[in-house]
């Protein structure tokens, strides 16, 4: 009961600070996923076209995924230094696999007969990609972005240890205070909420982009 009271007091007194860190946390996660998407979507398309490379690329992505985030962040910190950039790059690395994989799967799942029809109607390769394959694959690609963002929000929380700030910094503050449970909650609950909201919103967009629903737009 008193923890709840402490928690409400802390949140009430520091709502501005928590909002600032929330926003900062979200931006770091969003930028990381954005940069990963810029690399991974073309990469996914590429390996879908040149199938031989796919197993190699996806294996590499899986290997990156197995490295503990804290360890990866520490290594990247040696190269990139302290602060937000390092957190963003680490998270971008972890986002490569889900986005590449989903782009690959999305592209592969496009019905071959549809592609043939497009080809027969005189479309160039690029037109095929833009007008047929991508629109059909986009909802699966969105699912990849969604997974990446949700994982990313968790990884950014660790960024507190390399000076990146964000909601993770609030959690660390709590662990150092005497009876800091209230502060830990004030960092942890918004982090969890952010992940849930991100999952929900991107899930909604994903459903909207499903080929059957496209007309509704």
């Amino acid at each position: 009961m008193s923890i709840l009271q402490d928690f409400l007091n802390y949140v009430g007194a520091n709502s501005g600070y928590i909002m600032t860190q929330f926003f900062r946390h979200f931006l770091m996660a969003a930028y990381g996923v954005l940069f990963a998407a810029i690399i991974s979507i073309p990469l996914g398309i590429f390996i879908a076209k040149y199938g031989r490379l796919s197993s190699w690329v996806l294996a590499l992505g899986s290997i990156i995924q197995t490295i503990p985030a804290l360890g990866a962040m520490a290594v990247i910190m040696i190269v990139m230094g302290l602060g937000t950039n390092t957190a963003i790059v680490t998270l971008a690395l972890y986002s490569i696999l889900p986005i590449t994989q989903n782009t690959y799967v999305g592209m592969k799942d496009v019905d071959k007969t549809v592609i043939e029809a497009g080809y027969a109607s005189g479309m160039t390769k690029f037109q095929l990609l833009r007008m047929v394959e991508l629109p059909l694959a986009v909802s699966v690609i969105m699912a990849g972005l969604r997974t990446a963002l949700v994982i990313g929000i968790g990884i950014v929380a660790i960024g507190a240890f390399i000076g990146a700030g964000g909601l993770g910094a609030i959690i660390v503050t709590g662990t150092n205070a005497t009876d800091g449970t209230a502060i830990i909650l004030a960092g942890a609950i918004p982090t969890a909420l952010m992940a849930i909201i991100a999952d929900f919103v991107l899930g909604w967009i994903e459903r909207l982009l499903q080929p059957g629903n496209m007309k509704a737009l």
Partner: protein
Amino acid sequence: MKRVCYKAGILLVLLVTLVGCSLPGLAGTSKDTIKIGSLVQSESEIMAEMLAIMIERETDAKTDLVTKLGSSIVQHQGMERGDIDISSTRYTGTDISGALGMDPIKDPEKALKTVKREFDEQFNQTWAETYGFENSYSIAVTKEFAEENDIEKISDLEPYAKDLNFGVDNAWVNREGDGYDGFKETYFDFGNVYPMNLGLVYQAAANGDMDAVLAYSTDGRIKEYDLKVLKDDKRFFPPYDASPVINNEVLQKYPEIKEITKRIGNEITTEEMQELNHQADVKLINPRKVAKKFLEKNNYFKDAEKGGD
């Protein structure tokens, strides 16, 4: 196919520029922001917030905090690489043995002079005026015990030491130089020594499990648990006076920062820092609020409006 290459090219250039300069919304990624590095302790973050508030008031620079750094060495490396421009708190004793790799200097003034000179020469950094407080090791007992037996300084404990339980933090026991071995040589042995996690030390003293503990002099919990810090009469512990350290390039660009550090300098006593830490660690007040309240209470803002002191 050419168009695809063209578009990919544009995208690549865009990516490089984005990584190269600032990301909207994240001040720390911009080159014009003064980045202030602070340690994981509240004290360091409070001082970083004070500097940030003052710098944003007095200069047109933006500030960003790089918080929760693990140690002074991390701060030092960050400053060498340019990841941070200002370290909010650096301690003479720590950096003489850490960044400078020298033997401990027991005289506080000589220690301060040494770091000022060496940091300027070796690293092109300015070790500014001390804030006025020091976060050194010290021995603490309960106030009750001190009053009953009339104990003011560490030497006063000697007659009782054989029967006392001494609680210390794990790191200190095995420290060379100013650790327990050195302590025994200068002062005396305690009857029983119990190494434990630092967080437990103060509580153990307060509830009577420990009779004496090794404490950090600015820790807010000293106040919370009503402990008394004993005077280091034989000057065994090296001085750990706290100062901000600033990159000289930043100082050239914003000379006002020098004025700011002078104004905050020598103003905060160890007891006052205990109180500020107490607010942050025990009363769970946000460091930025603690900093702002302190500056307001001490009229730093009014002075600024009148055009300095």
